[in-house]
């Protein structure tokens, strides 16, 4: 500044604000500065000084975030825009007249304190909006170190809350968390070479390597930081709310009221507190009572009480009845469970009641559909289950199974198989009877049975329902499994319990229940892939078309049902599948039945608004041979380095051969497989298609020309033929 003669005597100062002011810049961060001058300096002088300052920086490629203001304008901007005020709380001069900047900062702080009661609620609402948009750092697949809940912006916000003098925050903890997140961001900038705050899964290995961590460890570390920061923020905002709601105390007002609710537990000031009598260190039931009350009433544990819980003893194993009853009360309480579980997990209590939780704590799910980490997902499943307890005879078994259903993840192997015995062990430890513990273990082992069969088998085939009935054994167990399935799905994402999926699962459960009531209820030796409830339409073709066909579209769940009738011929299902693909339809399932030379097929597609004309055009082109599916959607070269898997499921049906293909999802896949099956001389009775991220899992019910299942050797040959395709 002293090099700029034009600047002399006008109170010019270059002020660092924002991240630069807070000294928390990462290698590629923007440089946030304001050129401040005394009010009343001529505009031409200001412009000259500004240009002399900025151009060298721009020409050097500095990412400058600049502004020019008089001291009056600085104060006005801070008063008008809380974000500018936040940025100025740590303002410091990096060049020019420093004392003037200190005075300015003091005024901004004083104004902040004066107006805090009005401005902080605005800040709080903006925070809520941001976090609901971006998500939580500990829970998101893409970890936004700055904007997510529990990220750097929350940490900065808390410094602003402290600056308001209305609340205090544990300084050391906050600063340690902030510094740790900034360390990760520094490495993130170095690794990517850009000013990014988003730690995506693809970047985790490189950032981890640069920091000397294993990738899993970095993931856990960042999520843990996010969770602790979020917890600090939540607690601080809650304290602030209490302060803002306080009415002025009169001298005669008594201290906080203690409302006892259970031995050793009371409600005070909207929080659950430990009264100290009985002593929680002597009576393990006190902690359980506190947790149950907090969950039931939807109240937070007071921070002091939560801290005390860290050192309470656990009940003797197996747990006494009362201990188990209290735990079940918490698990069946509903949404109140979520914040309480978070509190006791941070306090270290969950580790003592459920050491197996460690393997799933803050672990991201491998599936892209999950909104939550596995631990939070399990708690959410418990909450959903609490809403379904009317549908089952044993709510305690349901909610315990919901909490433990993914406990096998984080270990090697199939998480259902691993989780079953683990859950049974935990249940025994918690004092459930051996029979009940076995049921919980079985539920955990089977928790994916219904969604798997419903989406990857023909639910209309009586054998499918018979398989379910055999696995569950009785109606009570079926009810529990159905409720657990719904809880798991709804706690995963809306797509996991869409109208279509729910319809399939409910349909399967109804049929299984019928079999359990009367094992012959659904027996149908003549089943040929067509649901009994759907009447076969009479074929009505006009004779003018060379290749006559009819198309009927109607809404179905969250998609559409397309019914196509045409002359029966080899490879018709493949051709129609191709035509639908070219018409942009995503096929979920297909059924085809031949009767008197006419083929009728019904197709479930994902699109709720199908344009019938476009569909008709494509089908006509394909049936007339005018459109080469080979050219339009031919597979070409194998698109994935991972080879496709072709499985023949022997026990799934007695009336057809069930073939499952797992491959990279792409447009020509169904058509190519269907064509291969037709070329081998077989017919497809029905197809059940689902995608799981980038992978397609397509199941085909294949029959011989006379309508029966393939003999085993033929089935194996067919599987080989499909494997040979460039999937």
């Amino acid at each position, binding site marked *: 500044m002293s090099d700029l003669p034009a600047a002399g005597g006008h109170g010019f100062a270059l002020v660092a*604000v*924002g991240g630069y002011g807070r000294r928390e810049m990462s290698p590629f961060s923007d440089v*946030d500065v*304001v050129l401040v001058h005394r009010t009343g300096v001529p*505009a031409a002088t*200001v*412009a000259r000084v*500004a*240009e002399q300052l*900025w151009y060298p920086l*721009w020409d050097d490629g500095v*990412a*400058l*975030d*600049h*502004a*020019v*203001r008089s001291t009056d*304008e600085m104060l006005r*901007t801070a008063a008008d*825009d809380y*974000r*500018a005020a936040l*940025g100025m709380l740590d303002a410091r001069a990096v060049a020019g007249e420093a004392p003037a900047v200190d005075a300015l900062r003091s005024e901004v702080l004083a104004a902040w304190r004066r107006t805090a009661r009005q401005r902080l609620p605005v800040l709080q609402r903006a925070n809520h909006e941001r976090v609901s948009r971006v998500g939580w750092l500990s829970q998101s697949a893409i970890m936004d170190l700055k904007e997510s809940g529990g990220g750097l912006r929350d940490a900065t916000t808390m410094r602003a809350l402290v600056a308001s003098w209305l609340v205090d925050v544990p300084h050391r903890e906050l600063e340690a968390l902030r510094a740790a997140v900034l360390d990760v961001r520094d490495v993130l900038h170095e690794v990517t070479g850009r000013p990014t705050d988003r730690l995506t899964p693809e970047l985790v290995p490189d950032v981890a390597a640069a920091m000397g961590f294993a990738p899993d460890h970095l993931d856990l570390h960042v999520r843990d930081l996010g969770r602790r920061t979020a917890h600090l923020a939540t607690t601080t905002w809650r304290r602030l709310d209490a302060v803002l709601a306080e009415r002025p105390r009169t001298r005669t007002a008594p201290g906080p009221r203690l409302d006892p609710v259970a031995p050793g537990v009371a409600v005070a000031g909207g929080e659950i507190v430990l009264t100290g009598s009985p002593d929680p260190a002597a009576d393990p039931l006190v902690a359980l009572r506190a947790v149950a009350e907090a969950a039931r009433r939807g109240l937070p544990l007071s921070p002091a009480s939560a801290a005390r819980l860290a050192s309470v003893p656990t009940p003797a194993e197996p747990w006494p009845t009362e201990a188990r009853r209290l735990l079940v009360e918490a698990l069946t309480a509903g949404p109140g469970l979520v914040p309480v579980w978070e509190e006791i997990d941070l306090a270290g209590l969950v580790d003592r009641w459920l050491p197996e939780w460690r393997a799933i704590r803050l672990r991201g799910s491998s599936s892209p559909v999950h909104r939550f980490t596995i631990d939070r997902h399990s708690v959410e499943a418990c909450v959903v289950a609490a809403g379904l307890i009317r549908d089952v005879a044993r709510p305690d078994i349901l909610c315990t199974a919901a909490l433990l259903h993914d406990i096998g993840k984080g270990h090697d192997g199939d998480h259902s198989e691993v989780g079953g015995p683990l859950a049974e062990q935990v249940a025994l430890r918690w004092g459930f009877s051996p029979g009940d513990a076995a049921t919980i273990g079985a539920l955990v082992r089977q928790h994916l049975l219904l969604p798997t069969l419903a989406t990857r088998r023909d639910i209309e085939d009586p054998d499918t329902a018979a398989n379910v009935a055999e696995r569950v054994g009785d109606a009570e167990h079926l009810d529990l499994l159905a409720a657990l399935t719904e809880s798991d799905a709804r706690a995963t994402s809306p797509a996991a319990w869409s109208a279509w999926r729910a319809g399939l699962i409910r349909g399967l459960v109804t049929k299984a229940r019928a079999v359990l009531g009367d094992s012959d209820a659904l027996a149908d030796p003549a089943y040929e892939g067509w649901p009994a409830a759907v009447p076969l339409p009479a074929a009505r073709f006009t004779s003018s078309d060379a290749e006559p066909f009819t198309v009927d579209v109607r809404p179905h769940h969250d998609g559409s049902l397309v019914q196509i009738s045409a002359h029966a011929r080899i490879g018709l299902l493949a051709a129609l599948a191709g035509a639908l693909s070219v018409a942009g339809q995503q096929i979920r399932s297909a059924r085809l039945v031949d009767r008197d030379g006419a083929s009728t097929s019904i197709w479930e597609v994902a699109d709720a608004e199908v344009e019938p004309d476009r569909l008709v055009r494509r089908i006509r082109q394909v049936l007339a041979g005018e459109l080469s599916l080979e050219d339009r959607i031919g597979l070409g070269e194998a698109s994935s380095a991972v080879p496709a898997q072709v499985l023949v499921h022997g026990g799934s049906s007695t009336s057809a051969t069930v073939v499952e293909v797992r491959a990279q999802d792409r447009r020509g896949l169904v058509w190519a497989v269907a064509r291969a099956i037709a070329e081998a001389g077989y017919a497809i009775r029905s197809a059940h298609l689902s995608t799981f991220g980038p992978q397609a899992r397509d199941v085909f019910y294949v029959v011989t020309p006379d309508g029966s299942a393939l003999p085993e050797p033929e089935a194996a040959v067919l599987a080989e033929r499909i494997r040979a395709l460039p999937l």
Partner: protein
Amino acid sequence: MKLITAVIKPHKWEEVREALETFGITGMTVTEASGYGRQKGHTEVYRGAEYDVSLVPKIRVEIVTEDEDVKDVVDVVVKSASTGKIGDGKVWVVPVESVVRVRTGEKDEAAL
């Protein structure tokens, strides 16, 4: 053949057009556009909030020319559009596969 696109300050458009005409370029497409660069559309003495981004009016000039002329045309545009201040804009070049004159059907170089 190449497509030369230039985004420039509106008040420099006349100068650029004259310079191009002197060079021998007689046809071009001109559109009004808005944009910003590193400075987020802020002037040297911007007084607003640091995180706001402004769209600044610009003129987009598009010229299809033969490969041999590209370097010279770009030079002409850059020299005539420059003020030395932020917001001067950018010029870039992309390949063109084919060109047709609508009235006569002439193709490629004959259409330029």
